[in-house]
């Protein structure tokens, strides 16, 4: 097994164990999606229009709460030092952790979104766009979040500053992801999905470099 695959497998195992919080993000996602209709009222026409936006915002929030354990646990017990000295470059370490994070948060969210959209009376034409947009966009969210998590690794009140840093980076995903769902309802073309793919590709390719630079910064101290 290559070192990259071994690191991904290790992170997956840790996340799936008790205390790993693998299902936290999915549970939070479901809770938010369930509570919004209670707030905005039971008007099904309204809910159908806002479904894409609400589910996308819930997805961003759910990924945010699971981000601070991305590097923190390894940093605190010295595992990150060992990884930095190992055969993988820090960029590869960051990429492996982003992949493991997406597998435990983004992928379950994508699957869970379709049943939750039933609560919102989403038109049938938009289900494909919803799942596709989440599937394409959540890797980008994991990548952007990893940059924020690496930057705030040892910060005081790091948990509070992380959303402030990550949310501006995540806004294009929300804009184009929700726009893709709305576009599918109204019969517009695939432009929003194309923009979303561009965003996801860009962040997934560039985030490991930024995150590794931030990790080096904190490890050197």
């Amino acid at each position, binding site marked *: 097994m290559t070192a990259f695959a071994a690191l991904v497998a290790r992170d997956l195992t840790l996340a799936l164990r008790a205390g790993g919080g693998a299902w936290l993000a999915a549970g939070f996602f479901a809770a938010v999606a369930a509570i919004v209709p209670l707030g905005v009222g039971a008007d099904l026409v309204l809910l159908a229009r806002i479904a894409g936006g609400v589910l996308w915002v819930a997805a961003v929030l759910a990924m945010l709460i699971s981000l601070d354990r991305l590097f923190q646990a390894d940093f605190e017990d010295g595992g990150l030092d060992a990884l930095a000295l190992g055969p993988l470059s820090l960029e590869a370490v960051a990429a492996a952790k982003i992949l493991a994070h997406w597998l435990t948060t983004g992928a379950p969210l994508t699957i869970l979104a379709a049943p939750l959209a039933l609560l919102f009376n989403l038109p049938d034409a938009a289900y494909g766009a919803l799942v596709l947009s989440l599937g394409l966009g959540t890797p980008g969210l994991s990548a952007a979040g990893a940059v924020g998590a690496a930057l705030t690794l*040892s910060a005081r009140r790091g948990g509070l*500053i992380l959303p402030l*840093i990550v949310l501006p980076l995540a806004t294009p995903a929300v804009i184009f992801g929700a726009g893709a769902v709305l576009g599918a309802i109204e019969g517009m073309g695939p432009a929003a999905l194309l923009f979303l793919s561009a965003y996801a590709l860009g962040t997934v390719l560039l985030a490991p470099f930024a995150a590794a630079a931030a990790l080096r910064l904190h490890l050197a101290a």
Partner: protein
Amino acid sequence: MLRYSNPGRFMDATAALLPWIAWSAGMLLAAGFYLALFVAPADYQQGEAARIMFVHVPAAWMAMFVYAAMAGASLTGLVFKHPLADVAAKAAAPLGACFTALALVTGMLWGKPMWGTYWVWDARLTSVLILFFVYLGYIALWSAIEEPARAARAAAIFCLVGAANLPVIHFSVDWWNTLHQPASVARLGRPAMDAGFLWPLLVMAAGYMTSFAALTILRMRTEILERRARALLLARAHGAHPLAPAHGAHAP
């Protein structure tokens, strides 16, 4: 630029320069306000309300310019390890945030009579709002990390990551259908604006730029003095050093 990486030389140079810059800023702003309020003609369609343009447009220009300057300073600090680059970026950040807030607020006040609404979620307004949050995140990151050297590098990385927003802001009025007016001055070819409006605008922009320069230099000087004070306190706390200030210190 490399000459002034020595903080002592920087402090000496700016001590002489700062009053000149500050006075120029004051005079340019005064001239700009006079031109904007009394000399520039009223718009034939919007009347006197269009004069808010002279506050709003230079503020928006400065909001983007300051962030670009911060990104350049961050790159210089990260790559060339220029000692004062991160000081410059830290000093400029709150000023940039204020210019962005000024642009947003004056834009909202202008939007109500012109478009009938305070806000609309089009590409330009949204991307400038995101720029405002990036400024806030940058400032928060500086204060969240204890050690100044590490905070400087972390903030520099974040500033460079957020710089992807700048081209989006500038080209948003071309790329998307938007309520906001397209670029009239900063475009290829001659500015599409009459001289009666252009000159007050440029004078106001010069006033904003010089006041930004004066305030940034002042904040950089303060930051350097604070770092010196911190270094002295740390030296004192580390105990009996033969060169430490003697007054008030007890021999161990």
